[in-house]
């Protein structure tokens, strides 16, 4: 990847970021500690759409290879891992999170003080985000000879039928049994388990509530947080959802952003344009976003970060928490039809008062990216907003040419200026 010279804005970092580093460190150290001899805390590798509350309620520590992929990507370190996976026969066309992880697994090297992720006691993958994770987790299960549970979610294009909800709910019940067995514990008595689950769900609800408040605060002009803040601050809602630490952290972020709004402080000095980002971040090129910031373009929303606000379990759900989870986990952004996705996107553009949208067409991620051309067309033709489609990848920088991207960004900025 050749990096063209480009004037960049310096980030106005959130004070909360300092605590974030500590949270990330603590999380991964906790996972390594769990693997020490005599530790009794089992570790599960889970996908970002896995019903993690069940594992937490069972005392299992979840870790996220996708998040690890993002971490490696943001250190611009993914390519050698991807290459190791490719040498073993995994096609370069496969998702780069998967290749990064498989490469790290096969070589026994990693980016956490040189270590790969700690060995799993259990693997849980949910198909709700893509078919990739099912296959990737199968590879992992073979590698570690580790029990694997697949949560099979029907595609919820136009909502869910009762049979579909029942199918997913049944699997959640099955997961309780399978997970307990995998970590060599007796399955908990149903009443006790439900009590623990409800506690975790309540913590998830609190965190997603705060997360949504944060997104709402970004409606202000100037916006108190742009894409970089949000991409960085995604870690707890993905990885620590269902814990008190997550709630505490977002309370802090929410307060800080509310304070910025009160004082009229924007994340991007001289905010002129308000943009929306679609798809995963380009982890190895945050400078692209800084370049936009330097020109007064701020991100007021991302479909990617917004997606984590969906897990809103209500007190109503207490009657049937597993049923509620079956619905929530089937209706996530990557498992709904294009029509619903468009509706959500339009609502978001309106609510955040966006002037345009940037679509990262991410080669790795078919579920997120296929359909974007139609979404971009709709935003342009039906809402009359400028759109920019960037062909790239979230971690594998070999699939990305920064030069041509810059040219397209400049043209997009001109269009925004002419419309302003």
């Amino acid at each position, binding site marked *: 990847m050749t990096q063209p010279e480009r004037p960049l804005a310096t980030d106005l970092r959130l004070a909360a970021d300092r605590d974030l580093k500590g949270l990330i460190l603590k999380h991964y150290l906790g996972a390594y500690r769990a693997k020490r001899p005599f530790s009794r805390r089992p570790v599960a590798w889970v996908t970002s759409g896995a019903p993690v509350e069940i594992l937490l309620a069972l005392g299992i520590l979840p870790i996220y290879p996708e998040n690890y992929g993002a971490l490696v990507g943001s250190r611009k370190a993914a390519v050698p891992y991807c290459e190791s996976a490719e040498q073993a026969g995994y096609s370069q*066309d496969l998702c780069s999170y998967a290749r990064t992880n498989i490469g790290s697994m096969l070589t026994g090297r990693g980016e956490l003080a040189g270590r790969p992720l700690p060995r799993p006691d259990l693997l849980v993958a949910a198909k709700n985000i893509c078919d990739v994770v099912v296959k990737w987790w199968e*590879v992992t299960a073979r590698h570690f000879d580790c029990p694997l549970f697949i949560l099979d979610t029907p*595609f919820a294009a136009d909502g869910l039928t009762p049979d579909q909800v029942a*199918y997913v709910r049944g699997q959640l019940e099955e997961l309780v049994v399978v997970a307990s067995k995998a970590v060599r514990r007796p399955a908990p008595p149903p009443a006790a388990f439900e009590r623990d689950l409800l506690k975790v769900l309540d913590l998830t609800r609190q965190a997603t509530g705060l997360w949504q408040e944060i997104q709402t605060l970004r409606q202000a002009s100037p916006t108190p947080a742009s894409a970089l803040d949000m991409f960085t601050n995604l870690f707890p809602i993905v990885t620590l959802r269902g814990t008190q630490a997550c709630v505490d952290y977002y309370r802090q972020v929410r307060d800080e952003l509310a304070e910025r709004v009160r004082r009229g402080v924007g994340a991007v000095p001289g905010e002129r344009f308000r943009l929306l980002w679609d798809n995963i971040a380009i982890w190895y090129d945050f400078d692209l976003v800084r370049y936009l910031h330097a020109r007064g373009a701020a991100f007021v929303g991302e479909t990617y970060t917004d997606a984590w606000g969906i897990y809103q379990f209500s007190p109503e759900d207490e009657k049937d928490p597993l049923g509620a989870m079956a619905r929530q986990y089937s209706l996530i952004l990557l498992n709904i039809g*294009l029509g619903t996705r468009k509706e959500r996107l339009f609502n978001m553009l309106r609510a955040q008062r966006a002037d345009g949208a940037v679509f990262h067409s991410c080669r790795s991620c078919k579920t997120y990216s296929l359909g974007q051309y139609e979404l971009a067309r709709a935003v342009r033709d039906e809402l009359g907003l400028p759109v920019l489609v960037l062909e790239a990848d979230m971690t594998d920088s070999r699939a990305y040419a920064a030069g041509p991207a810059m040219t397209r960004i400049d043209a997009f900025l001109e269009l925004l200026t002419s419309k302003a």
Partner: protein
Amino acid sequence: MLERLVAAGADPLAHRPSDRPSLGYVCSYVPEEVILAAGFHPVRLGARPGPTGPADSLLQTFACSFARALLDGLLSGRAAGLSGVVFAYTCDSLRAAMEAWKVRAPAGSFIHFLNLPARLEGPGVDTYAASEVQRLADALAGVKGGRQVTAERLAEATRLVADLRRSLGRLDRVRSSRPDLLPGSVFIAVARGAQALERSEAARLLAALADEFEAAAARPSQPAGRPRLLVSGGYLETEQPLRLIEESGADIVADDLCLGWRRIAFAEDDEPNSLAELAARYLRRVPCAAKHPPDPRFDFVVRLADEHQVAGGVFLLQKFCDPHAFDYPALRDRLEATGRPTLLLEVEQGSVASGQARTRLEAFVERLRAGGGSS
């Protein structure tokens, strides 16, 4: 007979019967029995090879070329004479092609997504699959020209399809014992025709063809000494990749392809009595890479290699196909552990880029001839 089947496979839409409505379907997991029982002629929609046109404005180039070409065909009006299209849940690419077609299809088009489970095992899988197949049957009954799927109609349809599969099974045995008479590429072309032609005609032709080939195979022959190969992959838009292998001096005697054995071989040979039984039967058939768990498929491929005494395997990997690409290294290792060398070829837009592939294939065949198990 052979010509008619092959021609139908090459151009399914031109070979529709005129006395009843036709319905397109995508994926061998769509139970054609249900479409037949609902009064339609089922046409397995393929994809024309070659560069795509209108689909490029809807799907990025990293969707598999089969999904793109399929969408392209639909957008170019190829579904115009059909009563609708049934898709099945396999992979992200096909799901996206279906979603894109929903956006652009003419108003009122019938589009059904058969939301089959990805898991083949588990407490609720059978019940759930049955409910989805029932939903398909109900939906078809509501389409113009459709009718209720009654027990008798279903029985008749399952008999017909089972019959057809049995004849294909007989032909498969001929392909294995006498690939000089029935090359693998021709076998697949015939199998392709069998999901395009009106099914009772197809069943009749296949039975007669099987008789003929079996009689011919019974006559003594000289062994040709060509290495026996197994091919593994997904859907093939054309037989070009298979012909290329044969031209390189090997025989294709067994397959793990959507069009071939995976569709033909069902675990039990009985005829299901209800939609629920039918659904269960599809779950127990030879699985594809998009289904979980993967081990039954790996075991199946190794067993197939043993049964047909193949010397090696060729993987025909559709470019950008995630399910197959993820399975490839493990399946390669499983096959190679039995002393069988393998070769990987990438298929795009229906064919294998022949220049380099030919050289690699010839070297591969040479190695097999030399008895080269060790690499």
